């Protein structure tokens, strides 16, 4: 409480940016070292969050609140609950890994690259801890800029600009509509209470008429659905993922996509609960379509990175399905699956990047029999693949199982169709693994590939540690999220009754 951990987490990367700006661009190692040091320090500072977090309460913790534009009710208000805790830790955890992963990969414009990465970290942590709508929006937008530069400057030369601009504009569409919704909400609050405020927690208690909730939900929902990305607004994702540099893809998959799902959980559902119930069928069906569609499209990909990208669409579909079940198991599964997806898909992108560094191709057809030349690589790749499929004992299983459990309780049909996604996942991942790793080495160029270096093993090991940890003993993580989830589910249950009444109003309105 006294020690402003969250603010330090947000500001430290910016201090790092300032530091790196002053360094000489010739000293690549110094720049990389400085970035690494800052990222590691940030990770270490974030650890007390985990140990100091009280998992028994759903209240916001580590809260800091300072007035920002007092006359207009804007404040710098940050805090953490069970939902955001894991995501913040995921962010601080994945950033140093990314810096280490690009240690040799990035040779060009290293200084700017590191500045972008650290800048991005500030934005990401800011999004997860903001409890003020204005502050949230600022971070939400800020983080676009470095990601856009990462894709556009260091991406794959052929189509990077297209991908970067598409990413930027897609996200902007959603966020600008969200901005309007935020404004409308704020003035509605002003009309009701007579106070200007952007305080998220105050909005939770606001009674909003159903018709307004309807539009608000759609406006916020579009912004988040684009970020998730849900079918049919997912089309920026394969491009952005494929063209981004390895590290860009990792952060995109591990953290940025989570902002969408997190947004639903933190903003959409609690603020507009009645509309949230009303939209369950629509969003669940879209989620299910996403699961099956993502999986089917993954099956036919010839490019490793594109395959992983489409598998993200499928995995995030699971998360959305879990969240929209509004059951304890579904929501907890959704939260844990966000982390799982961050770890396993992040690791998959790292692995694809490692292969790409060696062969400068990502086409599945160019590989085959790699397990013979790269045994260590094969083991790690296998673990990550199985985790992505959802093998019991690894993290993916826990998340998908809980989600399906929750979804089954809420609606059997969705759950049954969604379950087929797990089977498809096994199909496309294993088939991909088989084509890349097993069989004879058919391509001459693959004959002499070097196995993983120590650095690369160090990059992957921490991720794999958590993949196994969550798989074997998920309670460590689930108990931190429990109180917040319970609170959320109770809140949703409470508004279920009023939703029926609200829907009646609409029905009568149509008759009239």
């Amino acid at each position, binding site marked *: 409480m006294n020690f402003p951990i969250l603010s330090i987490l947000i500001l430290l990367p910016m201090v790092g940016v300032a530091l790196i700006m002053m360094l000489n661009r010739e000293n690549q190692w110094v720049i990389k070292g400085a970035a690494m040091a800052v990222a590691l320090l940030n990770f270490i500072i974030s650890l007390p969050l985990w140990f100091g977090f009280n998992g028994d309460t759903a209240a916001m913790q580590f809260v800091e609140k300072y007035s*920002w*534009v*007092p*006359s*207009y009710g804007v404040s710098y208000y940050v805090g953490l609950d069970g939902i955001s805790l894991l995501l913040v830790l995921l962010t601080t955890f994945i950033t140093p890994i990314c810096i280490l992963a690009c240690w040799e990969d990035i040779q060009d*414009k290293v200084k*700017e690259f590191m500045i972008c990465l650290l800048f991005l970290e500030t934005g990401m942590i800011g999004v997860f801890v903001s409890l003020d709508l*204005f502050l949230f*929006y*600022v971070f939400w*937008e*800020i983080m*676009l*800029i470095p990601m*856009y*530069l990462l894709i*556009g*400057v260091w991406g794959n030369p052929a189509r*990077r*600009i297209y991908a*970067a*601009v598409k990413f*930027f*504009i897609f996200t*902007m*569409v959603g966020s*600008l*509509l969200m*901005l*309007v919704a935020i*404004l*409308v909400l*704020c*003035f509605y609050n*002003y009309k009701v209470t007579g106070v200007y405020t952007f305080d998220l927690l105050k909005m939770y208690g606001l009674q909003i008429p159903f018709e307004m909730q309807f539009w608000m939900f759609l406006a916020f929902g579009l912004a988040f659905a684009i970020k998730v990305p849900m079918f049919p607004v997912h089309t920026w994702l394969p491009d952005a993922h494929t063209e981004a540099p390895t590290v860009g893809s990792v952060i995109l998959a591990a953290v940025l996509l989570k902002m969408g799902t997190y947004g639903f959980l933190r903003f959409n559902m609690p603020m507009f609960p009645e509309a949230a119930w009303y939209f369950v069928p629509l969003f669940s069906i879209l989620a299910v379509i996403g699961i099956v569609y993502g999986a089917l499209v993954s099956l036919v990909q010839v490019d490793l990175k594109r395959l992983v990208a489409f598998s993200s669409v499928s995995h995030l579909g699971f998360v959305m399905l879990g969240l929209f079940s509004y059951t304890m198991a579904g929501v907890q599964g959704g939260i844990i699956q966000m982390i799982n997806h961050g770890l396993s898909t992040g690791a998959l992108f790292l692995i694809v990047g490692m292969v790409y560094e060696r062969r400068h191709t990502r086409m599945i057809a160019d590989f085959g029999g790699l397990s013979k030349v790269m045994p260590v690589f094969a083991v790690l790749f296998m673990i990550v693949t199985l985790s992505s499929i959802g093998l019991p004992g690894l993290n993916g299983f826990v998340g998908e199982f809980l989600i399906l459990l929750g979804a089954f309780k809420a609606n059997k049909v969705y759950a049954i169709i969604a379950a087929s996604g797990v089977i498809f996942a096994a199909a496309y991942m294993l088939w991909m693994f088989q084509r890349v790793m097993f069989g004879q080495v058919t391509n001459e160029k693959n004959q002499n590939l070097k196995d993983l270096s120590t650095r690369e093993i160090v990059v992957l090991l921490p991720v794999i540690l958590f993949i196994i940890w969550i798989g074997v003993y998920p309670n460590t993580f689930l108990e931190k999220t429990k109180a917040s989830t319970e609170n959320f589910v109770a809140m949703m249950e409470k508004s279920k009754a009023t939703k029926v009444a609200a829907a009646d109003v609409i029905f009568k309105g149509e008759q009239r």
Partner: protein
Amino acid sequence: MSIEIPTICLTSIGPLITLSVAGLLLLLLEAFSIHGAKKGYFHQISLVAIIIGIIQTILLWGRNTTDFSRMIYVDNFSFFFYMIFLIGTGISVILSVKYLEDYKKNYGEYYALMLFAAVGMMLMAAGGNMVTIFLGVEILSIPIYILAGMFREDVKSNEAALKYLLLGGFSSAFLLFGIAMLYGGTGTFYLADLAKVIKASGMNNLTYMGLGLLIVGFGFKVSLAPFHMWTPDVYEGAPTSITAFMSVGTKAAAFAAFLRIFVEVFPSVKVDWDMLLWVVAVATMTIGNLTALAQTNIKRMLAYSSIAHAGYILVGMIAGNKLGAIGILYYLLAYTLMNLGAFGVVILVARKKDNYLNIYDYSGLGFQYPGLAAVMTVFMFGLVGMPPTAGFIGKFFIFSAAVEAGYIWLVLIGVLNSLISVYYYLRITVIMYMKPAEADLGPVELTSSVNATLILSALAVLLIGIFPGIIYNLAMSSVKIFPI
């Protein structure tokens, strides 16, 4: 019969006097100096005058009265705009120095005319009487006509001057006609009395016509659609430093007068003109942004973008509430810094004789001149309205005001327009950072004064974006006088 001599206090127009005297001094200096001998002093004198003006404005801050028989308002609203004009003129002067040297046109009258134009702007912001405001419009416009045609050997510059003169003349005529109609309808030139009469006896045909003609007249000056046609040609043809100056100065001054007249005189008839302005705002934003998409000349692109920005600002006028007025003041300050900064970079990159004005000339700039590209990026993202820049906060206030007033559709159209603008502003950063240099463009000469100006503007754009509270409070105390 006794003639009452009104008491006047010269300090109430202190900044105006300072700039006028400095302008005259410059003219004398130019006239009596052997050609080329005193060149260096012109901009220093202008800058000193501007700094004195700023100090005078700060000392005046907080007064709330009228002077010169109610011809001039002495209030924070005027002072806020004085600051915008003085900062804008100051930056323009600094940007001009090297540009003019390149063209061997470093004349004293250039700076004198700029200062006179600034005086006109201030008069427009402070005018308490239609005649004063019209006087301000003319004092502003005539120097700008000349400045736009400063490069008389250049065909484009001539075209710009002629177009601006003709259309500016038209707009002045419309304005004057509108003033005449209002006088005919109410029998007074004073804004305060106009407001009283209209409140008491309502609108009549003459005042309606006057209102319409005023909108046309100001519409020309701030380049609202469909009166925006002159903007791209004039902006492209005029010397870049003058384009920068007029894009922010003229716009801010016209909006100052526009805002004061409309919220002070016509608040009771708001419903009658806001539908009209609604359509104009939507047309202005959309035409500006869509046309900017297709531009490859950066000056033309910025010209169309400035049309679009006029549209955003108009949204704040339509909202017609206190927050809207605050938003306009904030936005104009932010816009002044961002746009002047952007033009500063344009001047630097264009180099001798404006050779590099195509947007593709910026390719590779990001890594050849990282500092220059970084400030340009700040200005571009500011113009887009991305946080944490001042541009975002400005748009935020303006759009909030419109939401508060219930114009949600207008806001939706506004944000969709910013979305369109993302593409062309972003394209500059794409070209700077993501395209390799097409040809070796040779060195960009950086002078320390221009560097410092650009860096300070960029920092200011960021700082007032991150800490909007100070400017918000200043703007709030400026619009307190309005009955809204």
